[in-house]
């Protein structure tokens, strides 16, 4: 997996986590700034999915690892839109909790992708 891409996605996820935490603390709702961060993150995971699927043949490990790798890469782009969809309908600070959960999940899953890739050394 392209390491710089992982760093960018991971950083965007942490930024979304930070912004949503900050918004939750100040009782703010979804706005353009948060949407922009989510959009950057979405773009990152989409590129990541394309790159990951293009290199599926060279994933180290057995078939199960390859399957996990592909499943994570494909699932990731669904998380930010799903979180935004849920957050839009909730008009309290808890909507930011949903964004934070999704951001955390994206960070963990991206790290896991890189971890599987690194098995090859």
């Amino acid at each position, binding site marked *: 997996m392209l390491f710089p891409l992982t760093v960018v996605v991971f950083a965007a996820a942490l930024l979304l986590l930070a912004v949503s935490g900050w918004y939750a603390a100040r009782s703010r709702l979804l706005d353009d700034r948060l949407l922009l961060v989510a959009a950057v993150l979405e773009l990152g995971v989409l590129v990541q999915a394309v790159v990951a699927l293009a290199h599926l043949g060279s994933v180290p490990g057995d078939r199960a690892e390859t399957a996990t790798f592909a*499943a994570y890469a494909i*699932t990731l782009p669904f998380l930010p839109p*799903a979180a935004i969809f849920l957050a839009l309908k*909730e008009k309290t600070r808890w909507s930011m*909790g949903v964004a934070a*959960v999704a951001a955390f999940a994206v960070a963990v899953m991206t790290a896991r992708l890189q971890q599987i890739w690194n098995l090859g050394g």
Partner: protein
Amino acid sequence: MADVTGTPRTDGPRSTRSGPGIVLVAVYGLLALAATGRSVLQITEYFSRAPLAYVLSAVAAVIYVVATVALARGDRTSRRVALVAISVELAGVLVVGLASYLATDAFPDKTVWSHFGSGYGYVPLVLPVLGLLWLRRTARGSAAGSA
């Protein structure tokens, strides 16, 4: 006590997906996704290695999906379904968690509930407790939990 901030509601129970509930739905949804994915992989790729553990894994996945949908819907029937699903979930994580320490042979690799969900940051252990507390709290009606 006067409650002037909340929207006017009747005495019915508060929706399980409002306020903190929406975060609960999100975390349940995520676990449903993780458990289903892992379960499909285990059953299709190496089922014979630990049939019992992987069947329980599939049961866990179904429970999470049911709980997610029930909490997200939040009507009267869903509330009952959620109560059953989350109770089974709590029992499951406790029993499987304990069994994975006592009968290590039957649980060769991690599933959502083995070792009390340590592979998922113990979220599977905490989640059903939060879920049950949330169901109890929302059952009291709209006055509760307007943080």
